[in-house]
């Protein structure tokens, strides 16, 4: 397992170099020179300009600049925002947990609803229930995420007034940041008796965004679970398990689902990309303070160091999650565990 991890990491090195090169080039490809973008409206005389160039290292040859950039990255230095003048890494540390919380909630929702629906559809193959689930999954798979968010807001927030429209928690709550995950932090504050009702507020705020972001993965999980279960149900070991006298539930969960999960994990891994892209849209609709909204706001404000860092971070997260999914296959499917047979 460990050698497998090392091999996979080594294979990533060219990709990582390429990604940093692209991020490095991003600022230099934008029309106009970086100094002008940085100082914006203000005018600089020639001396100040040269001094700033030297200070930022922009007078060095490109390969030296790139080397410096990578060294800075390795030290966790992502540059400074042009707008807030704060280090990008500090802003990122606050926003990242919000995106992770949203994405995890969406995934949990997708699995909690998608898996049972897929299994039930497979067991009742051809019934009206099966057809309904598959029709919904087909529609869900084609759903424009941003529109779906607006429709849900229209019904649940504006029409029924059940859920709030934006943010992570009601403004009346003042919750200390402990983990950065609002569900955890608000629950802690709630338990300590500081802010009663904070947890419920956080859950209500999370509900719609997680549903919106979870819809496509849910549809994919339901479809894939159904089709994998149908394959597995035909297998001899299922008949054997039933013949041994195991309860139907045990046969389905321990023998069926265990094996059906392999393709489900595979497609779930393929969903990570659309989940990240969907997070950008979902965060924009619900004003969810995560890295997706941060990135879009930065583009609108022409805050290029933030854009550069945001793109780089998204790529790193995507690569990292894909690596985890790769390793997860090994856990779900023992045949793929490296070094074995």
């Amino acid at each position: 397992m460990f050698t497998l991890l090392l091999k996979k990491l080594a294979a990533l090195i060219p990709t990582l170099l390429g990604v940093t090169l692209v991020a490095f080039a991003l600022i230099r490809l934008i029309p106009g020179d970086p100094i002008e973008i940085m100082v914006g409206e203000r005018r600089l005389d020639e001396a100040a300009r040269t001094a700033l160039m030297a200070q930022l290292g922009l007078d060095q040859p490109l390969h030296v600049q790139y080397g410096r950039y990578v060294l800075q990255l390795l030290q966790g230095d992502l540059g400074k925002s042009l707008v807030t003048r704060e280090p990008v890494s500090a802003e990122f540390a606050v926003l990242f947990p919000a995106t992770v919380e949203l994405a995890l909630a969406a995934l949990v929702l997708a699995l909690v609803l998608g898996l049972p629906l897929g299994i039930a559809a497979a067991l009742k193959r051809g019934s009206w229930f099966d057809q309904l689930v598959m029709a919904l999954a087909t529609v869900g798979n084609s759903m424009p995420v941003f529109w779906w968010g607006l429709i849900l807001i229209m019904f649940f927030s504006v029409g029924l007034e059940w859920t709030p429209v934006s943010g992570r928690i009601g403004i009346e709550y003042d919750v200390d940041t402990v983990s950065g995950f609002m569900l955890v932090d608000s629950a802690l504050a709630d338990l300590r008796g500081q802010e009663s009702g904070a947890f419920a507020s956080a859950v209500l705020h999370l509900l719609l965004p997680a549903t919106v972001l979870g819809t496509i993965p849910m549809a994919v999980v339901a479809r894939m679970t159904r089709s994998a279960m149908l394959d597995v149900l035909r297998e001899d070991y299922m008949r054997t398990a039933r013949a041994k006298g195991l309860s139907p539930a045990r046969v389905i969960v321990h023998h069926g689902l265990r094996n059906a999960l392999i393709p489900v994990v595979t497609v779930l891994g393929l969903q990570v990309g659309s989940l990240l892209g969907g997070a950008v849209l979902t965060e924009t609709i619900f004003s969810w303070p995560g890295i997706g909204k941060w990135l879009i706001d930065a583009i609108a404000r022409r805050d290029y160091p933030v854009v550069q860092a945001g793109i780089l971070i998204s790529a790193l997260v995507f690569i990292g999650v894909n690596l985890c999914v790769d390793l997860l296959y090994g856990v779900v499917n023992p045949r793929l565990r490296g070094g074995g047979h």
Partner: protein
Amino acid sequence: MSTLTPLAERLPADTAPPSPWREFVAAFAANRGATIAFFVFVAVVLGALFAPWLAPHDPLQQFRDHMLTPPLWQAGGLAQFPLGTDELGRCLLSRLLHGARVSLLIGFSAVTLALLPGVVLGLVAAFGKGWLSAAIMRLMDVLLALPGLLLAIGVISILGPGLVNTVIAIAVGALPGYVRLTRGAALAELAKDYVTASRVAGAGRLRLMFDTVLPNCLGPLIINATLGFSSAILETAALGFLGLGVQPPLPEWGSMLSAARDYIERAPWVVTMPGLSILGTVLAINLMGDGLRDALDPKLRQAS
């Protein structure tokens, strides 16, 4: 005792195998969902092609006396504006019809712009020398390090928003998929005897690439291009919604939604109509793609 009738006489008269096209049409038509989707898609295409003649009004003309008029079937609706008007009093039906032009045009251009270089690069990666092939594939790995929409956002942040840049951004995101697919399919074909035979017969490299191998890789490419078409339409709308795609006042479904956000309480139709257009078109193309996959490659057929 009857003697055995010869095999040929027991078979129906017409035993010639159906032409590949006939076989394909029959397999596609057997899929009810795909057939319905095909007609929906044809309707969208016709609507887009004939938008200037079908649309009751100029999509940019503002009827200031009729701002946020509800659709015909709601109280206060006017026959003049069958689907109602938007916040500036523009006819929603006319904007949706012209919006279909924009979406289909961008989708089609982006797929073409990704497919053609993708196929060439994929074939070169399959046929070319080791270092060339490795260089192409590593480059594609870098592009694949960002999910499609984020890559498009990155490209837009360099090029700036607009219709042409939207096409480029989406095409760049879709390119690696076609390169990988073509290379994979071409490598599988290269191992087969007919390619060796053709090579022995003296076929040059270009002939081998484009005439011998490529036609046998078309199935998966057609399926991928169809599904790529629908995701290009979705991404166009997503970029438009984020304000990074086609810029107003040009009617585009995503940017129409973005403008409609503020009227969600007073005028739900300005939100529902563009969204339903996107969903309907994307759904139709995806269902067609499923039908194509089943018809073109029975091996890929899902257990159902």
